[in-house]
């Protein structure tokens, strides 16, 4: 069985024919060639494949590509460019929030959703928010610090 789907990824429209069993993670990487989205555990535990679907963070390995028909998707490629990083990416660089980089796309996308939905008043709240994303290098300290820096900056701008 094959199905037509139309999705917008990072502002660009795609129309593809896919099998219903194709995961959104594989659709992004294999069909569209957007390899910024990483695939770790493939059963929703590690968070590396997290992308934004209509603005909400979602595990792309737990989403069938056909379910994204008509949706707007943002992957790590859509956050910023190497020349113009977005603020969260910039703070990941400033605070040394990554080492090997495997978990980073998922951390960034999760971070974007956390910043949008929660006050993140305490570091404990940031840690709870990141509990669904595994990192085996950093010990998380610098990832928390990077998100903290963005929160502080937003609070500074607001007051």
């Amino acid at each position, binding site marked *: *069985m094959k199905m037509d789907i139309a999705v917008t990824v990072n502002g660009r429209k795609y129309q593809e024919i896919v099998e*219903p069993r194709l*995961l959104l993670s*594989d659709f992004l990487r294999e069909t569209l060639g957007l390899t910024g989205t990483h695939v770790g555990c493939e059963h929703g535990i590690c968070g590396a494949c997290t992308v934004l679907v209509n603005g909400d963070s979602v595990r792309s390995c737990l*989403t069938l590509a056909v379910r994204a028909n008509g949706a707007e998707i943002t992957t790590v490629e859509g956050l910023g460019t190497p020349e113009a990083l977005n603020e969260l990416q910039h703070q990941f660089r400033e605070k040394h929030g990554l080492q090997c980089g495997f978990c980073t796309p998922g951390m960034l996308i999760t971070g974007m959703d956390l910043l949008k939905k929660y006050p993140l008043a305490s570091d404990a709240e940031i840690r709870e*928010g990141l*509990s669904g994303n595994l990192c085996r290098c950093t010990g998380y300290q610098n990832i928390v610090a990077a998100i903290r820096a963005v929160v502080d900056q937003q609070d500074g701008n607001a007051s």
Partner: protein
Amino acid sequence: MKPAAFDYVAPRDLKSAIDALVGAGGDGKVMAGGQSLTPLLNFRMARPSLIVDLLRIPGLSFIELRENTVVIGALTRHADLEFSDVIAAHLPVMAAAMPHVAHLAIRNRGTIGGSLSHADPAAELPMLAVFYGATIKVEGPAGRREIPAEEFFVSALSNCLEPEEIVFEIEFPVLTSHTGWAFEEVARRFGDFALGCIAVSLELTDNTVSDARVAVMGVDDTPRRLREAEEILRGAEGGARTALRFAQIVRASVSPADDIHVSSDYRRNLIGALAERAFNTAFARAVGAKP
């Protein structure tokens, strides 16, 4: 770690979804948020010939206050419950529990109907349904029926749904007279499945408990109301003695199994400690003090 091939339909109404399941002759599977089913597909532990996706059926995602109940559509996502003002105002135990349901990315997709249908014994929504005495409304080839939550869950990952029945909404009674409540959970990692979890709510008359409601999960094959524990709270006053006696009854009422995470004894002791804490918090809330 890729699903085996299956056919896929995304019907526009419940009747067509049921017809598609009947047509699949027992080999069809309903997908709601897909957060429990997709891992099973990826592992090929589930190999249905047909996926019936409810995603495109309109009108199944809502949270409505109707008299003394909150009615929730089956496709309502966990994140919708987490951020709902109606839930915060009328089902405070649910509001407190929602951040513990998996992680944000899962809550953005997972649905209440899906969680109840999956019936994980360590999941929050089945336990909340049992705690509140919710009514689970389902539709199948023979029509609609209403199932009390306590009769819905049969054993671990198993409920009384017929293969072609679909949950379409859930009705939660508002416990208006219960002014004190608490929700306590411990998991290995915040958002993981619970090692032990308890919900308590209390009604006080003259600083004495006049009504109580207690439910636990993670410590048996299904979430459970603990009526014996509720009974010993009726007529009791606040304080350490009541809390300890309550914890003792809760510990004695459950029969957790050993598993790869922790031993049976650990879970039993944990639920006792959480019970003590939950009673004290609920009582403090009921007398109007900050816990």
